[in-house]
């Protein structure tokens, strides 16, 4: 590590060092400071101590939006994880036309959130939506997808499955890295397909699963655009009013930027806590290849 190298290295890294300071460190510290103030674009920040946090913990809408968000995470993350792994396993059976199927599963993840929301408000439409027509065809009364508070959340959870293509591609890459010799050894022991999946495949891709689950949790906690488009104002009965929706409204509709900053930090802590829990819970189950 010569002095020259150090100088050049740091010089080359300068854009990110600046970006890290300006767009991450500064906003993180500033939002923590703002969270102890009363502050809007029109008023300069005024220190009010813990008042924002105090109010937050007595704010019904805060709890409602947090509860909605956690329910969404609890539904969407496991469901799309299972579907993504199942799709990847199916694709990994070396069937013909694998790349065509992969493309078809992947296509939906390309759709911009707003277009996705628009499209699904039409698919789930109560009168002429595609989904309800399918229900009518088999003579089952469809639920009131977008009008019923419970179903509205399920509508969004179901939509999340449609976007699991990205995770699926990552799983598929992980599956293709599993050494064939392991399967051969399992076959010698007489393992059937199911046993091989449980005892060889899943442990071998467990680090990938952990990665996708953690990224899924972080992303789902921030759900914003699709409900913003499909359910204006978090209708029905605030059942689709999520954490980010309330945070956004506080910052830009109610001009309560100090309050929004406090919400931001609470979200940050929740994100960290859930990530740590996921890491902790997985400790015994995640298998790392020692190389």
């Amino acid at each position: 590590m010569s002095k020259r190298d150090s100088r050049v290295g740091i010089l080359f890294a300068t854009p990110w060092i600046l970006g890290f300071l300006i767009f991450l460190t500064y906003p993180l510290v500033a939002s923590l400071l703002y969270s102890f103030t009363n502050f809007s674009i029109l008023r300069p920040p005024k220190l009010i101590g813990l008042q924002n946090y105090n109010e937050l913990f007595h704010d019904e809408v805060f709890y409602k939006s947090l509860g909605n968000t956690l329910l969404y995470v609890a539904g969407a993350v496991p469901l799309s994880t299972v579907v993504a792994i199942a799709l990847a396993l199916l694709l990994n059976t070396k069937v013909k036309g694998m790349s065509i199927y992969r493309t078809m599963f992947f296509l939906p993840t390309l759709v911009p959130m707003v277009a996705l929301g628009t499209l699904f408000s039409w698919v789930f439409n109560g009168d002429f939506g595609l989904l309800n027509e399918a229900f009518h065809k088999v003579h089952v009364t469809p639920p009131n997808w977008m009008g019923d508070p419970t179903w509205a959340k399920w509508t969004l959870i179901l939509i999340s499955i449609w976007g699991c293509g990205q995770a699926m591609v990552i799983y598929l890459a992980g599956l293709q890295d599993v050494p064939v010799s392991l399967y051969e050894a399992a076959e010698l022991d007489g393992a059937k397909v199911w046993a091989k999946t449980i005892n060889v495949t899943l442990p071998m891709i467990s680090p990938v699963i952990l990665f996708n689950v953690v990224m899924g949790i972080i992303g789902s906690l921030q759900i914003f655009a699709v409900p913003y488009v499909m359910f204006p104002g978090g209708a029905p009965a605030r059942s689709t009013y999520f954490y980010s929706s309330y945070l956004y409204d506080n910052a830009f509709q109610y001009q309560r930027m100090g309050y929004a900053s406090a919400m931001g930090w609470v979200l940050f802590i929740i994100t960290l806590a859930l990530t740590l829990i996921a890491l902790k819970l997985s400790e015994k189950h995640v298998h790392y290849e020692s190389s």
Partner: protein
Amino acid sequence: MSKSSSEQTRKIFAHVALVLLSVMFVLPLLWMLSTALKPTPETMTSPPRWIPSQFLWGNFAKAVAYGSKELGYIPFLVYARNTIIITILSVGGAVLSNSIVAYSFARIKWPGRDLFFGVTLATMMVPFPVTMVPTFALFKWLGWVGTFKPLWVPAFFASAFSIFLLRQFYRTIPMELSEAAKIDGCSEFRIFTDIIAPLSRPALMVVALFTFMGSWNDFLGPLIYLVDQQTFTLSLGLQAYQSQHGGTEWNLLMAASCLVIAPVIIVFFLAQKVFIQGIATSGLK
């Protein structure tokens, strides 16, 4: 014999499952396209018509021209232009900044480098809403709110995810190449521009594609920073269109959605292989 026949059954089962599932995944998109081409009354028939009685390609023109009377211009074309400007600037900025920053992390030794790289990876966990308010205040102070700048200037300062992707790639290029070039008197910058960057075209492509997608699809950013309707992006425009127009003329709304989605899908098909590989590597530790 029995083994190969059970293998056969499994293959058939996998095929059937894959066909059914892939149809389910693509159906909504086909439905969107079918609706976009229908005359308005046909969007409200039960059972639904999959093939419109006539293909109204004019629906796309109508969707695009929506609002021209009130606003005196064609918003969707303006939105498209705005989105293209922001996207091109972001992609350019991301490729330039990330390629050189990742080079520093992968191929030059400097004190604190690996620690800083670890911190960089950890920043991917910071949710956007946490930094949203101070970042907005910063851009407000700079007088940039209402302009495109908040949406593309940050791209020039690299991003953790792209640095990570490129670093993975750079590390696979043998160090001997750099050492040989150094003996020949090449500066680190020359090695980067003349040797490493040309070898890394596929990885740079991935960064360009991801940035393109992120920028094209971004909704919250434009929602926060763009005020005047003339400056809206396609995502923002589509949302405005939906809230003013939704629930009535589904065919025009779906036509507008198609237009927002089409460029992304076209770019994907042009660079499918690079794209899928890029996503696959993003899952590696």
